[in-house]
Structure formats: structure tokens, C-alpha cells
């Protein structure tokens, strides 16, 4: 009869040996490919300013099909107001 102590005495080294062989035969974990360059962060959704570009009085560019101009709440102001 094989004693329990005897079994442990042999099983542990054998188990370690098997594990060592198995790990040696296992394919190496794939090497991660070099990280692709990070995509540029999406531009924040900044609304376009309504200022006329370059401080011009009238915006440059091709004439549109329709140009709508509008005012409101003028409340009688016809003179310089400061």
C-alpha cells in the first residue's frame, strides 16, 4: 500500500515537471502589435461665430441665391445711441 505521504512526495515534482513541459510547448502569447497611432480626438462641436471674418464689413464669398437681412425691437432709435 502506498502511503499518502509517498504519493504527495512524487506527485508534486511530477506535476511541476508536466506543467513546465506544457508551458514550454504552449505557443507564446501573441505579442501585441504596436499600437496604432491614436486617432485624433473628435473636434469639439464649437458653433461658428456670427462675426464677419477678418473684421470685414461684408463677408467675402460667392453671392448666395437669397440674402435675407433682418432687424427687430428698434423702438424708435434713429440716432446714434452711444
Amino acid at each position, binding site marked *: 500500500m502506498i502511503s499518502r505521504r509517498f504519493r504527495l512526495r512524487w506527485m508534486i515534482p511530477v506535476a511541476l515537471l508536466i506543467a513546465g513541459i506544457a508551458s514550454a510547448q504552449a505557443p507564446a502569447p501573441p505579442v501585441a502589435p504596436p499600437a496604432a497611432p491614436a486617432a485624433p480626438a473628435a473636434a469639439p462641436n464649437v458653433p461658428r*461665430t*456670427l462675426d464677419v471674418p477678418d473684421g470685414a464689413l461684408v463677408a467675402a464669398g460667392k453671392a448666395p441665391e*437669397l440674402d435675407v437681412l433682418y432687424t427687430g425691437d428698434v423702438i424708435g432709435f434713429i440716432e446714434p445711441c452711444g
Partner: protein
Amino acid sequence: MLLDTGNFTDNPTEAGDLRTAKLLESMKTLGYKAINVGERDLNLGYDDFKKRTEALGLTFISTNIVKQGTKETVFPPYKIVEVKGTSGKPVRVGVLGVDRYSPVWQKAGPAGTNLGMAAPADMIATYLPEVRAKSDVVVLLAALSKDDAHELAKRFTDLDLVVGAYGGIYNTVEETEGRIGIYYTGNQGKRIGESRINLDAKSRVADVTTYLHFLTIHYPEDKAMQDSIADILAKLPKTDPPKKAELLQKQAEAAAAPAAAGGH
């Protein structure tokens, strides 16, 4: 094409009446195509308004000023303006105009009636389908808060553009609700909005580019207009306390914030 969202009327004083009359005459000269009637334009009632405006030949509209207790408008509820596009093709622009809803607003109307203010959404819902059917571009003139304008644009997606004025609020950057641009120009004629619109092959709005011009001294004066206004200013009573107080306050504000100073 020039449009105005209304509330062009000065205080009902001798000087205020002269200013308002001159302003309307100048709007006629400049060729405004449609003007929304604002609340303060009716401060003295419908008959007074007609007396001040009927000889001018300007087009005043209101989609939601009604005979009190009805949905019957007292001004044309919209205007279809046909203009020649840059390509030479005609462009039909449908213009509606609304004021802020007030269930208690009431003014003297025509022939002994009273005027009331209907809910803008109800009245737009009534007229927008026929305006859309007749127009390539539909513009809503809005004399109400910008939040209300957004609500209307959210609901009425057949609009193309909402332009408004409500106190001193004005846009500095583009603002949209869905595809509909919403632009406010402030008050006192200091700023003028410009929306450049291109159409697609089906004559529907393809793109809109908007600018807000702050009319500082960098913008050249028109000599004829300047002379004409100088004439009326010379006729103003020497004292006009409400206006003078406003001007003094503005001068004080401008002095306190020189970087933001400008004139028109």
C-alpha cells in the same frame, strides 16, 4: 430682402411719434418687404396704428394677433414675397410673424372690437401648411423669447429660419433647432442679421450662412439717410426725458466698458 420682427414704435410722446414716423419712412425707403406687428406697436390700439402706417405702403403681418376670443387675424397672417434670386430664378419667401403669447393682452381693435393674442403654435399650425406649399423658403419673425422660438422650431419642422428680437438678446454664434437656424438681433437697431441662403435643385434650402453685423461707426453712413434723420432730430422737442434718460444711461454704460463700446 429686408424683414423686421416688430416693436419698432417709440414711446407715445411728441418726440417718440416723430422718431417712429421717421423710422417707418426710412424702412420704406430701404425696401423692407414684411414687418411683424409687435405688442408695443399697438400700444394705442389698432386705429392709431393704421393712422400711422396706412399711407406708407409697407406690409405689416401678424400670425397671432386676433380679434379677441376668436382665431380671426386682423392683419394678414403671412406674406409671400417673391424676389429674384442671384441665378435669375424667382424665389418665393413665405414670412410669418408671431408675438409672445399673453392671455391677458388686450388692445382696442377695429370697429369697436378688442384685439387679443392667440397662442403662436396654434396659429402657426393653422397657416404654415399653406405658406409652405406656396414658398421655397419659410421664415418666422419672432417677437418672443428664444426658448419659445426653439419650442416652435422643434414642433414646426417645415420652417427654414427663425429670426427674432426680444429685448437685448442677440446671437454671437450659430444656433439651430434641428436644421432650423434661430437668430436674434438684439434691440435698438444696433445689429442687423444676415442669412445667406442657397437652394437645391428642388428649390428647397440647401445651406444657410448667417452673420450678425454690429453697426459700429466702421459702417459708413448713407449721406441721404443721415441728412433726412438730421432734419427730424432738429425738429424734436428740446426735452424728451424718457429718451434722454435712456441715452445718458447708455453713455454711462459705454464709459464703464470702453472695450464693448460701439454706436450705430
